């Protein structure tokens, strides 16, 4: 699991690459915690994300809560059908702005 974080002006993009299982979620937790401070627009790029467990979803939700507190904006970009399905099941589709 790899996370690539890039900054373009006010837009911070975090590209999630690989499988975000429980173990991976623990590993990327420090990187993701840093993203809580983002006050512009945070783009979670999921084009390369193939799997997500509830631990991963938990990170997404934590960021979302932080963004609301900071007045920031989160965009989830390019989720695959399987993950979209998980988003549907969990109601996350309504919590996030999804981009292809």
């Amino acid at each position, binding site marked *: 699991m790899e996370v690539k974080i890039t900054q373009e002006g006010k837009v911070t993009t975090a590209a999630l690459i690989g499988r975000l299982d429980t173990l991976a979620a623990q590993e990327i937790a420090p990187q993701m915690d840093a993203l809580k401070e983002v006050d512009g627009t945070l783009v979670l790029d999921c084009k390369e994300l193939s799997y*997500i*467990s*509830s*631990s991963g979803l938990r990170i997404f*939700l934590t960021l979302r809560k932080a963004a*609301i507190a900071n007045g920031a904006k989160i965009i989830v970009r390019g989720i695959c059908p399987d993950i979209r399905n998980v988003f549907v*099941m*969990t109601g996350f589709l309504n*919590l996030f702005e999804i981009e292809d």
Partner: protein
Amino acid sequence: MKNPIQYIRQSLSRKLSLWIVFFAAVIFNVALGFMFTQSLRAVRQEAISRASKELDNTVLRVNSIIQLVETATDNTDWLITRHLDAPDSMFVYSRRILQNNPELNGCSIAFEPYYFQDKDRGRYFSAYTYNDNGNFYTSQEGNDHYEYFYMDWYQTAKLLDQPVWSEPFVDVNPEIHDSKEIIASYSKPIKDKDGTYIGTIATDISLSWLSETISAVKPYPNSYSMMIGQGGTFFVHPDPEKLFYQTIFTETLEHDDPAMADLGHAMLRGEEGMRELRMDGQDCYVFYKPLGDTGWSVAIVCPESDIFGGYKRLQQMVFFIVVIGLILMFLVFSRIVSYELKPLRRLADQAGTIAKGHFDQKLPDDDRSDEIGQLTHSFGDMQQSLMQYIDRLQSATAQKATIESELKIANTIQLNMLPRVFPPFPERGDIDLYASMAPAKDVGGDLFDFYLRDEKLFFCIGDVSGKGVPAAMVMAVTLSLLRHSSSHETDPAKVIQMVNETLCKGNDYDMFVTLLLGVLDLPTGRLRYCSAGHDAPLILHDGTISTLTCQPNLPLAILPEMRYKVQEYKLEPGSTLFLYTDGLTEAMNADHEQFGMDRVREQLSACMNDAPRQILERVQDGVHAFVQDAEQSDDLTMLAFRYTPGEFATILSEKITLSCDLKRVPELNAFIASVAQKLGADATVTGQLQLAVEEIVVNVMNYAYPEGKKGFVTIKVMSDGHQLRMVVIDSGVPFDPTLREKADTTLSAEERPIGGLGIFLVRELMDTINYERVDNRNILMMIKTIK
């Protein structure tokens, strides 16, 4: 024509008037009767005294005439004696007597034969003068044809030697007078100075004169007088046929008439008196009295009809007046009473109208202060009260109807709380369940429920004490509590305990609930149950009926500290569990005989291998046949299910055991991926299976082995080609992920909790999950149909 008694009964005025008239008639009758009796006596007395007086007067008058005759005769006596030497003077004396007493008819101064021989007189010498209407004719009457000295009037005086009255006789002196005159003679012997009898002086008096005098006595219009002589012959009598020819006894000879004979004898004896007897066909009063020394007797006959005629007429008149008066009285009283009762009649009419339900009928205004007025007022008051009462009754009835309707709705709601769709699990081959409740007339307190969760059948049956709305409400509360409590708890004892604690709070009415709650783990047939004082269910298996052993626990809502313990039973495949309430065993027939356990077993043994629905229907029919027309006293609730788990024919079985470390998760995912590949699953399904298993395993690692405890997790994956079963087994502390609350996916980001998504996702991804703790191991099975 109406029946007269009916006619009188129908009207109070008629009745009242009749009574008044009746009593008036009685009083009149008594008063008039007394008066008439008294007047009858008075009239009689008056009649007697009047007739007596008349009779006395008559006798007095007759006596005076007789006296006259006697005096006239006596006064001449001495002249004759003195002048016996001058026979011719006898003519003078004879004539003088008549002249001096014109009432007299004749006078004979007759001497013994040849008495005046020395005076050239022959054998006969009788100086006779008679009065022919004031003309006096004097002659010597004796001759060869009339030898006077043989005559009675002459002889009696001579023989008796004293003055004597002759019986009346017909004067038949043809020489002088050819008319026969009835006369009576007073004869007196003539004696010379020596006292020798020398002749008889006889003075005649016409009886017609006497008769006239006597006949003139007429105290009553139809009364008459009569006189009889010494032999009883009638000398005075209105009937000429009787006169002279008949005696008073004549008729008694033909017809025996002792009264008449007695009267005759009494009169002849010279008695005086009054008698009542029947004469000539009518009742008469006869007053009689003798006439001086003559031996005659005078009688006045007064017909009773004459005496009492006036009285009788008066009586008839009075009777007539009384009758007319009573009739008038009846009519007038009828009218008066009828008039007085008019308001009452109107009241009666109105009361009739009111009785028909027209309560607003206005009563007649009446300012009378008498009983009728009071009645009208009382009636008006009653009507008012009645109207108010009806109003209240109507509103009460309306309220009651509302309550009843609401009760009905409540009952429906209550019934709708129970599962209603049968068969409930048509897609499942392992469980066939049927339940029925026949509610009694009142809203009852029986309950049953069942549902499947995580491959477990939750079922319960219960009975709330008492009936009616309180029982129904407790039933509803119990049902809700059960559903709520069992949603996160699979231990029946714990569920019952929770429900008991809640029910005990605020149970001020000492109601209680018997309940049996069971949880059947469908994959294993492991039945866990707990009975709170409920009837033990029956197990039908392999041709036998056995009773599920139940601890004698207290019913619910009695003791909050009560600790309920779970009981276990391994339900063999093919078994049927039969649950019921006491409405079944205590169903009563008309003879108050209970259906009883024996009959239940009898019914069940006949349909042991039938489907639950048929079993219940058969038992129900048996109860109906037993109870027949007797009213159902209690709810009759039954629940039965048949457990027929299918065989799982494994064609693939893979296993991996991991130490309790999150670092092993990728290993797990790889294992699932390899199995999925063997099953020919695509990437999506593989991802879903990986996600489900990972979530469970991570949960086990976190919760079954808390605080870094060491342990292992075994994951088994089996398939029969249609269904995939993934079983996660660990030896950690009891951990049942199925009890986790379902995440609410509708909440906003701020509201959503961070955790709780894992088990939720498992449920979403798999068909069903099932947890069992067996032999200190947590066993969680996930099932998903793959083809």
